[in-house]
């Protein structure tokens, strides 16, 4: 059906924007309906996500590529094999508002080699390891601080002492502060590895994926 009309009109016609029926509500930048009077944007929070994956070449590139291209804010990522040959566990610490945390899990689930993804509850069993190299001028004091954090000296020489500390993220942060007095020369920090607490499973894995 032709909408051509033999009348002269300047472009399309109809009531202009200011005369139109308008909605009353509003959404926030995440597309969530909100009270238009209070501009509520969801606050980011920090959480741990665990992914059980097939250990195929490129799986880590796929995961990190996903985080990059979807602009998810990632704090740390660790990966290592599990007791099941051919499968690895990736532990991610992320900081995002709730919708972002939801998206991260759903997008990870879509990657073919990813078998199961879940957010661990607020109190998982989580540890990270740090190796610190500091000046060796005061070895006794370095040892004392290392002991305070239940750490271990791994290497000591005339110029440097290298120690390891294991623990929660906060403990590691504290330890770094404490070692600053010895002039930290280098740090290698693993990022968090985590499992769900108690008998709860970290990943729901079927028999065939073990």
């Amino acid at each position: 059906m032709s909408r051509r009309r033999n009348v002269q009109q300047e472009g399309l016609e109809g009531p202009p924007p200011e005369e139109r029926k308008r909605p009353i509500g509003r959404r926030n930048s995440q597309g969530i309906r909100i009270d238009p009077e209070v501009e509520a944007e969801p606050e980011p929070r920090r959480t741990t996500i665990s992914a059980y994956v097939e250990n195929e070449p490129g799986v880590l590139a796929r995961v990190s590529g996903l985080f990059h291209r979807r602009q998810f804010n990632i704090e740390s990522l660790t990966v290592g094999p599990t007791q099941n040959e051919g499968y690895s566990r990736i532990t991610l610490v992320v900081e995002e508002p709730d919708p972002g945390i939801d998206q991260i899990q759903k997008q990870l689930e879509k990657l073919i080699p990813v078998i199961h993804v879940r957010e661990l509850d607020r109190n998982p069993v989580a540890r990270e390891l740090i190796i610190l190299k500091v000046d060796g001028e005061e070895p006794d004091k370095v040892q004392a601080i290392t002991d305070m954090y239940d750490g271990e000296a791994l290497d000591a020489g005339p110029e440097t002492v290298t120690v390891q500390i294991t623990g929660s993220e906060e403990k590691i942060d504290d330890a770094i502060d404490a070692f600053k007095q010895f002039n930290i020369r280098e740090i290698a920090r693993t990022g968090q590895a985590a499992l769900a607490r108690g008998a709860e499973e970290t990943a729901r894995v079927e028999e065939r994926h073990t």
Partner: protein
Amino acid sequence: MSGERTRKVQNAETASDATGIENGADAVVRALENAGVKHLFGIQGGAIMPVYDAIYDSEMNHITMAHEQGAVHAADAYGIVTGEPGVCMATSGPGATNLVTGIADANMDSDPLVALTGQVPTDVVGNDAFQETDAVGITSPVTKANTFADDPDSVGTDVGTAFALAKHGRQGPTLVDLPKDVTKGETETDPGGPTLPETYDSPEAADPDAVSGAAATIRKAERPVILAGGGVIKAEASDELRAFAMEHEIPVVTTMPGTGSFPEDHELSMEIVGMHGTGYANMAITVTDCLLAVGTRFDDRLTGGVETFAPDAEVIHIDIDPAEVSKNIEADHPLIGDAKAVLDQLADAMTGSPSTGAWLEQCETWKEEYSMEYAAPEDEPVKPQYVVERFDEATPEDTIVTAGVGQHQMWAWQYWTWTQPRTWVTSHGLGAMGYGLPGAIGAKLAAPDREVVCFDGDGSFLMTCQELSVAVREDLDITVVVLNNEAIGMVRQWQDVFFGQRHMASDYPWIPEFDTLAEAFGARGFRIDTDEEVEGVIEEALAYDGPSVVDVHIDPGEKVYPMVPGGGDNGLFALTEEQL
């Protein structure tokens, strides 16, 4: 060409008796045959030659395209029209990289597509060998799945899996990278039919409780709207959608990929929505109190700014991909599953219909107030809207329309009356200029008995017009209509509106005469300047049994309206430049 196929007999003697497969390349070809593939689109080169050699003995029809971008768009369009993955192939390096645009397009639009790329032999992979590129790495962000085949015994199943993944669940493009030593390597293994990886599952039916909740919401709605996305077409759910809308008298708007899922000649149709959607569709979606969204990813060209998108609506979102639900617009009722199955569930769960009488009246009023009527020119050049309408009237209902990207694409979308799914074939999400002609070639091979019309822009056509050589060689009866404004018009329109009419690099006064260009390729060329020429040329071009190009010279100042500026409020769509 039958004389050249003597090798077939020789091969039958040397091939393994049990399977007829000698090497990885044979297994690749067998996997494609087992998947029911009929057409392949590609260009060969060193690394993929073993596969081409194996195709020599196959019944499958290989269409040599002029450029790999042509191959991938043709395969994509083939996939859109048939619902079965289209298959394209290219050699390593530049062949593979030339496919990337089309793969990204298929990924955006969830089109079923399988790309096969040759790769340098595994012993030199990583050494920057001649024509080596990391095809898997490059295409990871734009494929549903991709894989590097590393074993002749499993290369056939790799291809079968790629085919199954492209087709099932949320459709999308997959790629298999085929190193030359793997395709040349010995194997006798028949890969069997396409099989999904065992880790893959895709939801069928939605949670019944969520369905009841959604049904109750629809039942009590005062201003419900159905938003039909491309997923409706992908799930073959157009009939279910139509039945639901009619049963409960709910108006329907369609996204660009969802166009055709609901007939626009039906009174419940509010037609198309979003940036260049109709005023009435954008009114309806802005003030609705209940939005039933089916198979859509709430792209920003649909929503405008999310803050003002359907802000009074409880949203029911049916989608096969959980990641699309509440990604851009929060779903109050997430219904994760196949659109066809879930629409059935929802229909069963409805205990009555909403009372939409007053709402439908309001919608009718908007249709009149914001009608898409345009004025006939007095002495101006011919109107593109008119050309689209006349082609629509001159062709059958099931005509397939392809398009490039720009104003011409929007006029085609707005002024064609869409009544059937799988008839609107273009680059929606990626917006890749150059899609139109190769898309028409793929569509014609997918539906040889149907009319195929491509609306192109002069800029878009110039990107892939070399594919005319293919249309001529394959004797494809397609009609390319270049809505020629001697400009990359959509960009020019934005410059007029947002950049103070500074036409930087958007005028194309040096473009060739497309009718003459068509003739140089061996196609028929036509030209239209005035209103009076339209009827006659359309008749002649459609009657011509082969590819034809109609060069329609339109006013470069012609604009696309309505328009919602990027990130804007759909309800405040502009009807004229002054309203922007």
